[in-house]
């Protein structure tokens, strides 16, 4: 009985973190607007390039105009939800030593960051996902899901994508324990992530060997997979399984790396 109560307390604490994540980003209204503006500009440019490739048959690699527009606008909307590029706060805290405070708290750092990130993502769905999608749907040919169950599947896929991307960012931040200045790693991620996740060009356009390689890696699970689920493209079970497997693997990896990092901190004194 006591155990159940304690568990509820812990869950309540984490839920509060989710809400805090939500509230914190709710106050930066102007920043969100500016971000939306950028999304719109890039969406317009990208969709133009991809539509120009469709050519006379009107399709390319299984994408027609509606599928292309959906891909681009949904991608722009998802950018801020999964938060492909973060501000390096974790790495910063490691560099300054503030991370010791975080680790001393009676919580699990990985779970706490995850909870906060979920809150942030929740807010981003309202403010950063819906506007670009509506914009795209109103001005371009757009393909909404045909089956009602797809919406449920999409929500699940989105949730997995958020966690997946969050864990990658977490691991990137943890590299700061070993490379005090991990700017290089983070900028490498910043430049290549777009292509690897299928944000810039649908992975379906890539040559077969590239597609096969990337398909095994976790990155498509961040962008391409949720978009594919929404567009009802591909085998739903396989897509979700791919995300789920990588989420579990990265969660575990995150735990291991964190414990090694903590150990290193304790042994070396920061």
């Amino acid at each position, binding site marked *: 009985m006591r155990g159940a109560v304690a568990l509820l307390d812990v869950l309540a604490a984490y839920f509060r973190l989710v809400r805090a994540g939500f509230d914190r980003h709710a*106050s*930066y*209204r*102007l920043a969100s607007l500016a971000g939306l503006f950028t999304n719109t500009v890039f969406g317009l440019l990208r969709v133009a390039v991809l539509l120009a490739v469709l050519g006379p048959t009107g399709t390319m690699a299984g994408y027609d105009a509606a599928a292309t527009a959906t891909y681009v606008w949904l991608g722009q909307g998802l950018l801020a939800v999964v938060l492909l590029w973060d501000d390096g706060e974790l790495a910063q805290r490691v560099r300054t030593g503030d991370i010791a405070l975080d680790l001393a708290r009676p919580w699990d750092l990985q779970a706490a960051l995850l909870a906060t990130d979920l809150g942030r993502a929740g807010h981003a769905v309202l403010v950063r996902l819906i506007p670009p999608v509506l914009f795209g749907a109103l001005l371009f040919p757009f393909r909404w899901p045909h089956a009602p169950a797809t919406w449920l599947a999409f929500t699940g896929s989105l949730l997995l994508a958020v966690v997946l991307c969050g864990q990658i960012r977490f691991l990137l931040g943890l590299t700061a324990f070993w490379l005090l200045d991990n700017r290089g790693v983070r900028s490498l991620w910043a430049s290549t992530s777009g292509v690897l996740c299928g944000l810039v060009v649908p992975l379906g356009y890539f040559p077969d060997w590239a597609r096969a390689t990337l398909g095994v890696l976790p990155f498509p699970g961040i962008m391409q997979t949720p978009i594919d689920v929404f567009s009802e493209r591909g085998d739903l079970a396989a897509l979700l399984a791919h995300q789920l497997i990588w989420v579990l693997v990265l969660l575990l990896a995150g735990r291991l790396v964190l414990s090694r990092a903590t150990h290193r901190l304790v042994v070396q004194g920061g």
Partner: protein
Amino acid sequence: MIVHAEGLRREFVLGRRRMLRRTPPGGRRRVAAVDGIDLRIDAGEAVGFLGPNGAGKSTTIKMLTGILVPTAGQLRVCGLDPVTQRRELARRIGVVFGQRSGLWWDLPLADSFALVRAIHRVPEAAYRARLDRCVDVLGLSEFLATPVRQLSLGQRMRGEITAALLHAPPLLVLDEPTVGLDLVSKERLRAFLREVNAQDGVTVLLTTHDLPDVERLCRRVVVIDRGRVVADSDLDALRTRFAGPRELVVDLVTPAPELDGLDGLPGVTGTAAEAGGLRRRFAFGPETSAASLVAEVARRAEIRDITVLEPSIEDVVRTFYGAPRPAG
């Protein structure tokens, strides 16, 4: 007149940043940070700008140096309009910001000086002479090669003042230069500024809320509160005109209850006893001399020791802060 300001006024609109946060209660308001300041400073003066936080000191300085444009009023510094002739004015003034650095953060101090010299196109000989003098008086030689970001605050401030004087400006403006410094550093800075003012005739304008800065350095004090000048005169005059009573503290051999009554003690406005009557305090006005009062007390009781306390400039100035705004 090196600084001539009349009716200087600067308004801010609060709640401008409402897009970042929710609109503050009451909506947008216009607030006058500086509300009609007249200021006339002649060349060679050393003026202290005193006031509590938020009084408008920094805003006035920003207007004097061309960073902010006044909402109303006339302003001429070194004969120039600070906003439209900003760069020309920059050649004739030296500015030291207490909270921000005018030096280059990751370069050695000496490199910062060289850059200042290049920017102001100071001739080699003059530059050497001024730099050597500052290095000598302020003791900079031990950290000339250290990057500025590794300097202590005291060392950095010495560097900042040097950098501000390298182009021999006729006017030196300092915005809270002694904040955070230890006593020794403060005194060193003040002594240097005094010397610069006395020997080189550099006009010094200093904002501070640290009263000893003013006492040690300035002959003239301008007290600002809530955007207005509430006092502008030299230190001694301030003290005399607005002074509270002086205080005579007498340590007695044995308590003397006869001193409870103040008869026979002319000019004494109040008395208090401490330590079971062994120590007595007498407040007395300017008409009475301390000597005569001591003689009177000695006639009534056996004195072991005496101290005469002057009203501090702090007490004087504090009477201005929070005083109700004069009508009109």
